């Protein structure tokens, strides 16, 4: 069974994390150096998060439909995204296994992977604060 029951839960947890990162004084500017717009298209449940990371502009996170034109599109199960933010996914392996698919100038996003490691405990804490320990203890 999927971890999230509907798209709203995806937005409540993963979407909220993206919003927090966009506003983060330290990480926000680093992410915006990627200078791209990336869209995460999730399955089970169907959902979509679009993140604008453009140098010199404010960050923007659209949950669901968007007017932003993505340059990079990452496709995966919402469960894979959840496990990634818990630090349980090796991106290289996920790409090799086809658990993640990447379209566009992927290097712009791969560059961010080492930066997000400190975010993993933050995601866990965010879930715990929301009373969703059930989502923390996944294999």
């Amino acid at each position, binding site marked *: 069974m999927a971890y999230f029951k509907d798209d709203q839960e995806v937005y409540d947890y993963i979407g909220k994390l993206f919003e927090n990162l966009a506003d983060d004084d330290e990480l926000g500017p680093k992410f915006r150096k990627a200078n791209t717009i990336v869209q995460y298209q999730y399955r089970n449940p169907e959902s979509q998060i679009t993140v604008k990371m453009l140098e010199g502009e404010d960050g923007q996170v659209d949950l669901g439909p968007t007017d932003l034109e993505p340059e990079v599109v990452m496709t995966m199960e919402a469960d894979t995204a959840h496990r990634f933010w818990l630090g349980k996914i090796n991106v290289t392996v996920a790409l090799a296994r086809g658990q993640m698919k990447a379209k566009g100038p992927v290097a712009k996003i*791969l*560059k961010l992977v080492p930066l997000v490691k400190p975010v993993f405990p933050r995601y866990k804490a965010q879930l715990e604060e929301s009373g969703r320990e059930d989502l923390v203890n996944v294999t």
Partner: protein
Amino acid sequence: MEAGTAGEAWAGPQMSGFKDFFQFIAPTRVVAGRGLIEGLGFEFSKEGAKRVLIVTDEVIRGTGLVDKVDAGVTDGGLEVAGVFDGVPQDSDSAAVTGAAEAAREHGADAILAVGGGSVMDTAKAANVIFTHGGEPREWEGYFGLPRDDDGLGRPQELAPLACLPTTAGTGSEVSFAAVIKDRDEHIKFQVADLPMYPRLAVLDPESTRTLPPQLAAATGMDAMTHAIEGHVSSEWNPHGSAYALQALRLIRDNLEQAVAHPEDDDARGNMLVASNLAIQPTSSGAIGIAHSLSHPCGAYYDVPHGVANAINLPWVIEFNAAGGEPIADRYREINELFGLEVGGPGDQAGHALAEHVRGVVRALGLPTRLSEVGVPEEGIPQLVEGAEGDGCTLVNPRETTAEDFAELYRKAL
């Protein structure tokens, strides 16, 4: 204290033992030997080819090799639909589109690449456009080609593709990626997916007979870099290492001979095989930051890829080997193969291998400094940005910061 030194537990990637996961893919049929060009049509027909577009460049065409290939294809009962010889030194989007259009115009149903890495990468990307349409940049990315079952099932096949490499270095004849230059945006982009594996690779020393020694040296160092990085990457695995270590034995025994004595068919043939083996670990994503450092050198300063790798590799070996004993142990396995020192602390083992590589580079007559090939010190910040964003960085065994990259470039300058 650096990770992996005495008293600190290793916290890096798993560098030995049974791995949680790895995937190894080698679907290309390889035929190697003498006199194979005459039988190209015979071999390619087994892959379903009937009307073949030959993709090459003007230099190769000028050597007369394409005429021999044409005869070999025809003798095997296939038709040569046409020849596209418009591939530039660095493959670009225009060449990819041009080759795909040529395949359509000539009514081809199969593509045969005759050339080095740029020609083969052009043919691979052109095959995607030929089969699925669109523009090259639309297919940029990993595992993005059409698949059955709403994109989750088996990838749809491309037209039959065969490769006859005319350099011994890139291994592109058995890899699933194509690196293409976008001249408008001054970047190189990658298209990579499983159907892009060529169906057939033909390794015949006749095809490298006219390879200039300088190019043989540079491409040979590219093969050495693939093999060393493939064995030591965080994505190493036993299958990839079997290929990488055998490639290094062949390089050890044949590279300098093939460069110094281009008339030696055996040495050139063995280097074709070595290059072919050395690339295989990349099917598992096993590579490293020598490539991350070298890619921007090519993109911004047109440094040939093999030359950049030859310069950067020794510095990377020293950097990685100092990152922990589990990493150094994998270099020790290479040292053993080269008859080098394996004892002592990791940085010592790394230094021994790095010095050996530097010696080979000097013996081959290649440049040993980035400043010799036009890279200026003020270019380092831009190069660092490129290296950080390179896909190879994620799979290096030692984590690499922007400052680490800057320091590596400064050392190599």
